[in-house]
């Protein structure tokens, strides 16, 4: 795999919810091994973009590409099988499955048979889950559920990891841990698309940042470059 | 005099458990009318049908559909007793002629009886009583009964008890199970443990098939004779197979009757519908006869209701089951036959009680 291979691409994507025009022509590319931050205020369309990439929402206009194939008509499970894992906002863990089952249900080798994230490694990363392996997902605390959602995504050994507010509700120590893991993931060549409210940390841990406002990309640059112009960024994010 | 077509409304079950019975009744009725060139009492007959679904809750609406929308002159129906009760109520109020070709609810020709309500079948009491008499004659002393916990079962068992105890026997236990439950095993075990001289039962349709098979499978048929009201083995023999062989039942009809009318009826029915008639077909046929007799008496003039009803009440019906008349309460006064299952037939082996009328208690007409 060449290092700048395009894994996921969106070109001029428009999305409607009924009458509401939520994405108004967004373009975004995720290349192998690249970490991208997606920022924007509440309700600007970040999650909508992600759900469109995953195939849960249909773009009314524009083109989605998943590994060079037309993604617009791909079902979400096909998208996921092309090596894209997703941690949704709100976690969506399976409450009626135990922690162990949550981690096993979708576990599979990644593309090329990679198996970087076997169960023991996930449990090493989140020891808290190890203590609660046989508990029902419903019984976990909010943060534990969040860890479980991330662990579950990793269990599919993805090439692209999409994290929508994955650190929400996690203790600072765990957040640091997660960012460390994202770092590790980056190092192993897994690409990531990260939505997170802590834009400073995002800037520090990604290659590139895209800022959405009212369904449009209003700012896109290398993270290092953006970090150097905090005023513009702060204005866009409303700080 | 009226000359237009006379409208007959069939309110019968065309779907669900009793659908086959509904069709047989209709076939029997039509056969008689067709034999007379499609006319009764000189009036051409026209039919309207309503599926009563064996649903008492819809009974009043369904018969109203026939009477008020389709303007039928006569209603013929039905199989299910609860539905028949609802029909009788409406018939009584509207004064519409109702001929019941099956439902055996005692009340319809008891407290509910009316000048415009007739039955050409039986009351649940009749076959039960007859079997009670037979069981006593056969020397049984202690008998158990088993049936579904519903009106028809209670009435049939009541009749049996009356006939049996009159003959000196004793019903030691009345077993029931909720309708339409068909899990009999527990009660069969009770029977096996109590070892009565015999068992009397009232079941019909799918329940009858299953009960007879279960009874045989438990080996009880070898030690404790099973007696039943005729529905136990009517229309069910093919399904019951070997397990029903030799069973004794009582009914107002059976195979191998020596009645000449029966021979011609059977031949005609078989020719018309490519299948053998059953008791339900006979009852339908007789319903048509009864109506025909009445209509002839008034020369097709349906407006002469009192004369019509008087003629019908006094009718002597040349039934395939053997001629019968109606009692004061408009229920057949008829011979009840004792029958034995042989092969696929309910062979008549004798008359259990002769010209037996239903007591019709409660009927003030």
């Amino acid at each position, binding site marked *: 795999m060449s290092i700048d291979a395009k894994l996921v691409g969106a070109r001029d994507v428009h999305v409607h919810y009924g009458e509401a025009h939520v994405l108004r022509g967004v373009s975004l590319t995720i290349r192998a091994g690249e970490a991208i931050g997606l920022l924007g205020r509440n309700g600007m369309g970040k999650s909508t973009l992600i759900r469109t990439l995953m195939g849960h929402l249909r773009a009314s206009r524009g083109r989605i590409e998943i590994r060079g194939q037309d993604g617009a008509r791909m079902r979400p499970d096909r998208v996921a099988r092309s090596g894209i894992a997703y941690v949704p906002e709100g976690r969506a863990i399976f409450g009626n499955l135990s922690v162990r089952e949550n981690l096993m249900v979708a576990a599979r080798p990644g593309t090329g048979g990679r198996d970087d994230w076997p169960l023991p490694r996930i449990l090493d990363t989140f020891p808290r889950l190890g203590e609660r392996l046989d508990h029902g997902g419903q019984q976990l605390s909010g943060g534990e559920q969040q860890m479980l959602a991330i662990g579950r995504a990793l269990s599919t050994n993805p090439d692209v990891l999409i994290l929508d507010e994955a650190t929400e509700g996690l203790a600072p120590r765990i957040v640091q841990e997660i960012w460390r893991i994202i770092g590790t993931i980056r190092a192993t060549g897994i690409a990531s698309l990260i939505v997170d409210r802590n834009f400073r940390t995002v800037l520090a841990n990604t290659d590139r940042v895209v800022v959405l406002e009212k369904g449009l990309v209003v700012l896109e640059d290398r993270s290092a470059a953006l970090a150097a112009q905090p005023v513009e960024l702060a204005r866009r994010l409303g700080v | 005099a009226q000359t237009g077509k006379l409208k007959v409304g069939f309110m019968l079950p065309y779907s669900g458990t009793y659908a086959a019975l509904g069709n047989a009744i209709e076939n029997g009725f039509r056969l008689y009318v067709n034999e007379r060139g499609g006319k009764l009492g000189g009036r051409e007959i026209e039919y309207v049908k309503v599926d009563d679904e064996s649903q008492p809750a819809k009974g009043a*609406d369904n018969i109203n559909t026939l009477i008020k929308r389709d303007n039928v002159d006569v209603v013929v129906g039905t199989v299910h007793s609860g539905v028949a009760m609802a029909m009788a109520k409406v018939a009584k109020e509207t004064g519409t002629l109702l001929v019941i070709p099956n439902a055996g609810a005692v009340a319809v020709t008891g407290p509910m009886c009316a000048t415009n309500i007739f039955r050409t079948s039986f009351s649940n009491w009749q076959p039960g009583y007859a079997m009670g008499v037979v069981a006593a004659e056969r020397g049984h002393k202690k008998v158990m009964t088993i049936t579904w916990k519903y009106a028809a079962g209670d009435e049939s068992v009541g009749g049996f008890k009356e006939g049996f105890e009159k003959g000196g026997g004793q019903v030691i236990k009345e077993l029931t199970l909720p309708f339409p439950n068909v899990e009999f095993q527990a009660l069969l075990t009770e029977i096996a443990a109590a070892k009565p001289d015999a068992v009397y039962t009232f079941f019909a349709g799918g329940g009858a098939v299953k009960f007879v098979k279960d009874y045989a499978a438990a080996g009880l048929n070898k030690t404790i004779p099973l007696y039943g009201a005729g529905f136990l083995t009517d229309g069910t023999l093919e399904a019951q197979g070997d397990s029903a062989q030799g069973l004794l039942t009582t009914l107002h009809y059976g195979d191998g009757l020596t009645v000449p009318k029966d021979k011609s009826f059977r031949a005609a029915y078989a020719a018309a519908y490519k299948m053998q008639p059953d008791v339900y077909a006979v009852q339908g046929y007789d319903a048509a006869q009864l109506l025909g007799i009445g209509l002839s008496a008034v020369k097709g003039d349906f407006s002469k209701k009192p004369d019509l009803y008087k003629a019908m009440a006094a009718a002597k019906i040349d039934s395939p089951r053997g001629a019968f008349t109606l009692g004061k309460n408009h229920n057949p006064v008829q011979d009840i036959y004792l029958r034995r299952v042989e092969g696929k037939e309910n062979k008549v082996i004798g008359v259990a009680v002769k010209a037996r009328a239903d007591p019709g208690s409660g009927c003030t007409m």
Partner: protein
Amino acid sequence: MSARARLAAPLVVTAAFAAFPLLVTGFYLEFTTKVMILAIFALSLELLVGATGLVSLGHAAYFGIAAYATLLLSPQYTAANFFWLLPATMVCAAIYALAVGALSLRTKGVYFIMVTLAFAQMAYYVFHDTPLGGGTDGIYLNVKPAVAIAGWTIVDLGNPRTYYYVVFGCLVLVFAFLAILLESRFGRALAGIKSNEQRMRAAGFPTFWYKLAAFTLAGALAGLSGFLVAVKDGFVNPEMLSWHESGAVLLMLILGGMGRLSGAVLGAFAFALLQLFFQWEVVFGNFAQHWQLLLGGTIIASVAFMPQGLIGLPAQLRAWRSRRAARARDA
């Protein structure tokens, strides 16, 4: 839609119904009477299912209990007084509803469905297996209740046209009562409970009591329809309490469209008319015997193509049209 237009439709419908008996007599009059009673029954369930989110599969119990009460409370050979018989039957239904509600409201979701079913079956078997109400064969009402004040008979319930207006009046009253009730704070609280009970409790609503009140009220209203049916037919049978009846009225709601009162009424009419139509020999000849096939097919098709029920059809068409327009715009 302007406020006036919104008011126009119900007024036209009400006027049409009021004028109906002047044009039609006999079967269709009685049929419409019967369906209006069913509509009241459906409305009472709508209060539970549509408004409160409590799916009861035992609603026929209250309907049947009131019907039985009508007969059992009526004297044998004289007419009962309408003005005390009606409340008395409704109270009978409400008391059973209160008892069932108090127990079954402890459970949720499918469990609630099944528990209400179980209690209805219990009532069913009480009438089915005991001679209390004539067993399986049911019992008759000898004399219809008299609408009389101090011995003066005001209207004769035996007259179909009069009875039509009585039922129609009840339907309008129940509809209006529920329409106002559901907009009141009590009604909105029920809506909140349906949507998110946890949050309602956290806000300070004693939700159990609200639900119990709704459950009892729905039982009483179902009792009203049971009373009306018993007086109309003069015959009751345990099958009135069977789960088929409970299921049928639930189907009316779903078919009509849940969450709107008019959906319940529409559903009752649609269900009854479809059944009548498919059973009609004049149209379907001998195939009318297989009316259930046609009814089943229609139901399947309506679920497939009308997810919001009949009442949601206009909105669905509008959405479809605007989507098509949007697509045309984009292209």
